[in-house]
């Protein structure tokens, strides 16, 4: 263990592919970085499942940070919890679906689908790779739900079970009803086209007169499901909007559908003509296609999470000196609970133990643990690091300092209604103009020829049907959504893009968003460090997983390690090492015995003593994200910028220096202060909030567009409209610009479809509209609009460099 490892010869863990960093665990000639990885390998090789390692190199997730108290899955024995989790159960077998975020490669699929080799109680398992879910069927008498989850955890695939998916089953991502309607419309449209072919070539006299009648009647029959079933959503939506005295995009569509259908009926039955039923089918087919195209969903991401998604399902309650695992919902004020290492504190509570070391990274984005003493109030959402602690619950989990946010009114409002889509605005004007043209041509022709007047009236309504108009929005936004998704910027739905285009104010959260914990600023004060001391320090901090140790390790740079006689990490204290008989301590003042008072505002201090002799201390502040400066500077000219922070204001001067002037800084803002700050801004501005922790959740919800920045997008992000992978933080200006461009593209395609309408209406007012012209003009305009929007969005995305991103 104490041997020096030359740097260039990195040993890589066979399971997870991480650097073994001097740890030597060898099984079957393979190196492992930690006990966890080794254990997984042993379980798999015992069951002859080593094929797992041949399908992909280093398929496993790191097991280093795995926590394991043996009874943490005890709540799964609770029959209420079981009932909520299981999809199906009879006396012999049960079916259950788990969400396992770590699923990422072919090996994962292979292993999870071969679970039945590991335990005979498992009947079968099936992975849905895209949704990262696995459905497992198991025998009740051979394996319990708890044992199943423990088994999955043992092989490194611990399912994520949270309160929110206990309460409601996961919704089906793609709207199946739209697909069904599209299928019906497509079926009818295809057949109607076939029956209309003779009509398109009516001059050629392809078939007998007798067939023409038959074909027309068949078209009527085929049009019935289109009008009654496929189009039903449009009637609903149009009626809802008329009830509110507004005209949305669906009103002119319904007007077109009705006039097409009834005019065709009249033509077919009264005039023995062909009618326009095929165009009606085509119209619905293209409209539904556009609707489906817009419904891009990111199945593994959740945008509407509330605190229940983060909190544990079960807690360990102490009653009569006995541990009892109870579901969180049964927790009451006054209960005494036990929180172990790495466990989340589920409710605001008082600390009963002597000390606690709470990591609030979930809440604030700051990952350095906060030291708490007996009797202090600890807010929910923190994570205990170190020894188990005892707490008394002060507030129920749903009413804490943080969770109160979710009871705020801003969580109840539907942001999609904030902005009237561009298409709705135009369709109001459009509908009135079309109606005006239709009536005036009717009035003009009625003096000359009444039946022609009726024909022109209907023709105008038919041809002006805003098919192309209605399709430009969904296809532009759908394509934009896809391009954003490829760049790892995931939007909740298409309407976010339109809101994003109108943003004029951007509010940043500081900690974890503008600053990056990994990019720390470290200053050392005290006696200068000799090379030897630096080497010793390096080998000390290398052993620790504490964030501050990692930062000091990074600051020390590349140095060879040093054999030490003894190294130990005391959680909540620091690291202790013995070198040449001298005790070296690095950590908190209490632990190191550093007595001099050090004045410092904010940041973290790490002290160094040798044999209780004060050597010096490190001052560690989180630094700016490497791309933050560039992002802020390029946004400054076009947007009003604000920075909100929960921290003290000591960093204001250094931030101003780096980011330049003209940004309003606001420090010491709690979660609800952030929310009200955004609320005030919203009165006169359009706001976009970028944040990362749960304390930003209120502000993200209140802003018009809330963007959550996250390192691991499918693991953790507060409720928001969009989730941004923190690697692409630097692309924010490009994303905003692209959203603006797609709004311009929509406008341009409106112009294009107006041109088609102008041609169509010109023909219609003259009474020249025939089924052939209609059958050509309608699909042509739709398709050309679709082609135009796709090409334009791709071209703009390419110009803005959104295609050159490295794949994740």
């Amino acid at each position, binding site marked *: 263990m104490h041997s020096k490892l030359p740097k260039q010869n990195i040993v890589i863990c066979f399971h997870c592919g991480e650097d073994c960093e001097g740890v030597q665990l060898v099984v079957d*000639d393979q190196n492992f970085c930690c006990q966890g990885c080794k254990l997984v390998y042993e379980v798999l090789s015992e069951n002859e499942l080593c094929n797992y390692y041949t399908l992909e190199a280093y398929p496993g997730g790191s097991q280093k940070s795995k926590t394991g108290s043996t009874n943490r899955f005890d709540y799964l024995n609770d029959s209420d919890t079981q009932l909520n989790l299981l999809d199906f159960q009879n006396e012999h077998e049960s079916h259950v679906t788990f969400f396992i975020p770590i699923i990422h490669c072919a090996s994962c699929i292979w292993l999870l*689908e071969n679970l039945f080799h590991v335990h005979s109680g498992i009947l079968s398992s099936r992975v849905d790779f*895209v949704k990262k879910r696995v459905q497992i069927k198991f025998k009740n008498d051979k394996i319990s739900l708890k044992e199943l989850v423990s088994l999955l955890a043992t092989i490194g695939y611990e399912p994520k079970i949270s309160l929110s998916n206990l309460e409601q089953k996961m919704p089906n991502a793609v709207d*199946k009803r739209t697909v069904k309607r599209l299928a019906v419309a497509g079926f009818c449209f295809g057949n109607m086209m076939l029956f209309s072919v003779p009509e398109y070539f009516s001059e050629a006299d392809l078939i007998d007169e007798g067939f023409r009648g038959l074909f027309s009647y068949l078209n009527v029959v085929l049009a019935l499901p289109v009008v009654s079933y496929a189009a039903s959503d449009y009637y609903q939506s149009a009626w809802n909007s008329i009830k509110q005295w507004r005209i949305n995009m669906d009103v002119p569509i319904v007007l077109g559908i009705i006039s097409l259908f009834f005019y065709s009926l009249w033509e077919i039955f009264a005039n023995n003509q062909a009618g326009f039923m095929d165009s009606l089918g085509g119209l619905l087919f293209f409209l539904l296609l556009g609707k489906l195209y817009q419904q891009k969903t990111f199945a593994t991401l959740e945008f509407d999470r509330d605190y229940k998604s983060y909190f544990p399902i079960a807690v360990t309650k102490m009653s009569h000196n006995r541990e009892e695992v109870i579901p969180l919902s049964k927790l009451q004020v006054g209960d005494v609970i036990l929180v172990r290492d790495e466990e989340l504190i589920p409710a605001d509570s008082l600390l009963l133990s002597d000390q606690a070391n709470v990591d609030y990274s979930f809440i604030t984005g700051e990952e350095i643990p906060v030291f708490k003493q007996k009797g202090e109030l600890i807010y929910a959402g923190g994570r205990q690091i170190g020894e188990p602690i005892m707490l008394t619950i002060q507030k129920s989990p749903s009413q804490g300092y943080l969770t109160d946010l979710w009871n705020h009114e801003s969580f109840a409002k539907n942001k999609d209604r904030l902005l009237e889509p561009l298409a709705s605005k135009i369709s109001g004007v459009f509908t009135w103009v079309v109606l005006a043209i239709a009536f005036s041509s009717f009035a003009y022709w009625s003096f000359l020829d009444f039946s022609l007047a009726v024909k022109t009236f209907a023709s105008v309504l038919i041809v002006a049907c805003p098919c192309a108009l209605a399709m430009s929005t969904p296809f532009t936004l759908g394509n934009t959504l896809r391009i954003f998704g490829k760049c790892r910027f995931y939007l909740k739905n298409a309407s976010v893009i339109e809101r994003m285009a109108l943003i004029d104010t951007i509010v940043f959260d500081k900690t974890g968003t503008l600053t990056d914990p990994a990019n720390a600023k470290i200053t050392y004060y005290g006696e200068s460090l000799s090379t030897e001391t630096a080497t010793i320090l390096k080998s000390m901090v290398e052993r620790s997983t504490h964030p501050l140790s990692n930062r000091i390790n990074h600051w020390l740079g590349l140095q060879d390690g040093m054999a030490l006689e003894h190294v130990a990490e005391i959680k909540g204290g620091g690291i202790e090492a013995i070198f040449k008989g001298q005790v070296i301590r690095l950590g908190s003042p209490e632990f190191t015995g550093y007595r001099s008072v050090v004045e410092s505002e904010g940041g973290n201090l790490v002290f160094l003593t040798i044999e209780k002799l004060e050597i010096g201390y490190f001052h560690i502040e989180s630094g700016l994200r490497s791309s933050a400066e560039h992002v802020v500077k390029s946004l400054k000219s076009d947007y009003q910028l604000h920075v909100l922070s929960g921290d003290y204001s000591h960093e204001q001067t250094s931030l101003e220096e780096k980011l330049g002037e003209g940004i309003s800084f606001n420090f010491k803002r709690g979660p609800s202060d952030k929310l009200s700050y955004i609320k005030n801004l919203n009165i006169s501005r359009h706001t976009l909030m970028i944040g990362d922790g749960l304390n930003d959740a209120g502000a993200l919800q209140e802003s018009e567009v809330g963007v959550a920045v996250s390192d691991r997008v499918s693991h953790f992000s507060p409720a928001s409209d969009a989730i941004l992978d923190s690697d692409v933080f630097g692309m924010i200006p490009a994303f905003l610009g692209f959203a603006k461009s797609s709004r311009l593209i929509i406008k341009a395609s409106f112009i294009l479809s107006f041109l088609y309408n102008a041609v169509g209406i010109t023909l219609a007012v003259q009474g020249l509209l025939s089924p052939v012209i209609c059958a050509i003009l309608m699909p042509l305009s739709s398709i050309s609009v679709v082609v135009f929007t796709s090409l334009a969005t791709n071209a703009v995305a390419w110009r803005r460099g959104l295609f050159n991103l490295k794949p994740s």
Partner: protein
Amino acid sequence: MEVIFLLIAISLLLAGTFLFLFFKAMKGGQFDDDYTPSVRILFENPPKKSTKKNPSTKQKSYE
């Protein structure tokens, strides 16, 4: 030309059957997951115990 009546009936019946089959497949969940089957089909069946390999032959060597 009367055969056209028959052909129309057959074509509608055929197209209708496809529509019905599509609905059935959708209800059965065939379109729920369009990625995993493409990976699953590449897995080989596990080798029988008789050809038990020495573990070192399966593994790659790393620097």
